């Protein structure tokens, strides 16, 4: 039973069988292998002497561990040897395509999958990374998995899954100019909670979603998992198809035509029944910034920390008091990057604000493009020059300071405004204090050297 939902249609399409205990065996059409969970999965396959079942359906690339600076520290060199080189070696050994640094295709899996057209509407896609929900932005059924499951996919091209329930978040209205999809999803997490989507596949729909660009939708679905949705999903539309046309791994000619015909059927029916449904109007959403240690610890009210109900542990960790304003707090780091916000549109938004100005003294400000393709395009458009002239570091693609796996750290006790997706305790480094925000807010904070939030303009911004 699909109950007419997009999720149900996609699930049923990939259902191989249901076992007597009610677990579904689901086919995996695409898998992305990172230099962390992907390397480990391939190493375990090697230990067992197993062959990958369908190597052509995978793509491997270093992102988590690969350094983003010019020279490796001894620690980075050691990690590179183990994780980055092994991904390359084992991918080649298994016949899996590998996008290494310098290939023109390296980058963060959730940026590269979309931009290369490896991710297709209607396909199932998995990765040993929770932010795989990103790919739902183009109507792929995509979800993050653990390392045991990574190995299972490599060995069998399938996964045993308990079918999740379905939810729809319907969004009416239009975002104000100066309010972005990052603000929208942070606001939603604040409204609905960090576990709203648990055990559910969450479809985002409505006029406010229709108005978003594909990259803005990707940022939104990326943080879907921060509201507990392992699966985030947006029905593909003409914007999606225009985005896909001509990308390297998207079929052309007759196959494109038949794919398009199929993709146009991928939406929830008018009569679809969801297990849970909410409807909200986005017209009054303001720029958001987090104050605490969960993405649900977010404020849009002029940067005010809640006066009541804020967890004392979170406030202590962040060095804040209940009821205070974040505005004017000195900022030590600004990070523009991550699978949430490192695409070309994100960099254009930030560069527009930065243009002709200077990063405030004492602020370490980085731009880490999401992929080599984004980096090249940003350089060609002159965005890199704008950032560099303003005092930003312009770095090589990777996850970098979002998860601080590769040694790109926020120093202990320091305050960062970050376009990434997690403000967890210790996430950006031991005792690092993270405030999540949009690229626009991050850029403003870099210039000011303190937390600033722009007042949104009343005019409508259909591009989101």
């Amino acid at each position: 039973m699909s109950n007419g939902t997009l999720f149900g249609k996609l699930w049923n399409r990939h259902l191989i069988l249901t076992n007597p205990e009610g677990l579904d065996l689901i086919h995996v059409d695409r898998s992305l292998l990172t230099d962390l969970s992907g390397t480990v999965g391939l190493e375990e396959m090697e230990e067992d002497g197993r062959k990958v079942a369908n190597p052509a359906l995978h793509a491997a690339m270093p992102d988590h561990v690969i350094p983003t600076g010019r020279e490796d520290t001894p620690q980075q060199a050691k990690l590179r040897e183990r994780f980055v080189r092994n991904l390359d070696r084992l991918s080649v050994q298994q016949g899996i395509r590998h996008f290494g640094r310098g290939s023109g295709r390296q980058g963060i899996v959730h940026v590269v999958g979309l931009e290369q057209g490896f991710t297709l509407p209607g396909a199932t896609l998995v990765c040993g990374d929770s932010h795989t929900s990103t790919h739902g932005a183009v109507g792929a059924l995509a979800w993050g998995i653990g390392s045991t499951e990574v190995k299972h996919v490599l060995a069998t091209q399938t996964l045993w899954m308990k079918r999740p329930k379905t939810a729809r978040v319907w969004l009416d209205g239009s975002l104000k100019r100066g309010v972005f999809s990052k603000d929208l999803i942070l606001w939603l997490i604040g409204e609905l909670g960090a576990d709203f989507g648990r055990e559910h596949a969450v479809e985002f729909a409505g006029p406010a979603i229709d108005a978003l660009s594909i990259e803005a939708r990707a940022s939104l679905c990326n943080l879907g998992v921060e509201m507990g949705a392992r699966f985030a999903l947006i029905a593909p539309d003409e914007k999606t198809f225009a985005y896909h046309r001509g990308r390297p791994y998207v079929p052309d000619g007759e196959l494109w035509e038949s794919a398009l015909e199929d993709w146009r059927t991928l939406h929830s029916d008018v009569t679809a029944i969801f297990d849970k449904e909410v409807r909200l109007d986005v017209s009054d959403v303001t720029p958001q910034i987090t104050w605490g240690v969960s993405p649900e610890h977010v404020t849009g009210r002029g940067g005010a920390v809640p006066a009541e109900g804020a967890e004392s542990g979170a406030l202590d960790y962040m060095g804040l008091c209940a009821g205070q304003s974040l505005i004017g707090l000195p900022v030590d780091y600004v990070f523009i990057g991550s699978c949430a916000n490192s695409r070309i549109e994100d960099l254009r938004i930030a560069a527009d604000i930065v243009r002709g100005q200077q990063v405030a003294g004492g602020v370490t400000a980085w731009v880490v493009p999401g992929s080599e393709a984004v980096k090249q395009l940003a350089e060609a458009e002159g965005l890199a020059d704008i950032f560099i002239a303003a005092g930003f570091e312009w770095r090589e693609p990777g996850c970098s300071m979002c998860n601080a796996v590769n040694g790109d750290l926020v120093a202990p006790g320091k305050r960062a405004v970050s376009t990434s997706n997690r403000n967890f305790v210790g996430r950006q480094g031991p005792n690092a204090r993270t405030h999540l925000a949009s690229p626009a807010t991050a850029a403003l904070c870099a210039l000011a050297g303190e937390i600033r939030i722009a007042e949104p303009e009343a005019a409508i911004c259909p591009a989101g």
Partner: protein
Amino acid sequence: MQAFETHTGLAAPFPVENIDTDVIIPMGPLMMTPRARLGEKAFLPLRFREDGSDNPDFVLNRPEFRGASILIAGRNFGCGSSREGAVHALQGMGLRVIVAPTFGDIFYGNCIKNGVLPVQLDDTEHARLMQVAIDANGGAEFGADLPRQVLTLPDGTEIPFDIDPGHKSRLLAGLDEIGITETYKDAIAAWQAADRKAHPWIWAIEGSA
């Protein structure tokens, strides 16, 4: 994988919401520590003070809860990153049962794959269990019985819990899933052959580098 059937042990109350897998095991130590020793690094940001000494306020550091094997956790436990090392770290500390009102979905699945029993209780039952664990203060044993789907309080009272039958059977069997799946290889091959005809654009990638 390890099977789970029944378990008896001390229960530690840990009523903090949104404990994410970065807190359960930060990525730095996860990458540098062999799996067998991950328990030493579990809850690292909460467990140690900045000078490296034990944080006496952290529940699992308190003498009465050392050796606890059942964790009564808060809402949305195990949210965030998909890292399976979070489950390995908890196992390494000796934890076999985690009880919470809600779990992160990926973490929940990783528990099933590793023989750790995740028990989801509604808010009322969870609050009651939390209070009993606080009152017991490490001085009494709790039980978990998966075949009968009950938790047992020190006074013998039973709290029933729901679990998906598929997850339950995997935990009870403790089998290698790849081995199970390979018994279905003909069904997988047949599905793929049909899908190549139905959705050929998915498979066109086989011809590209």
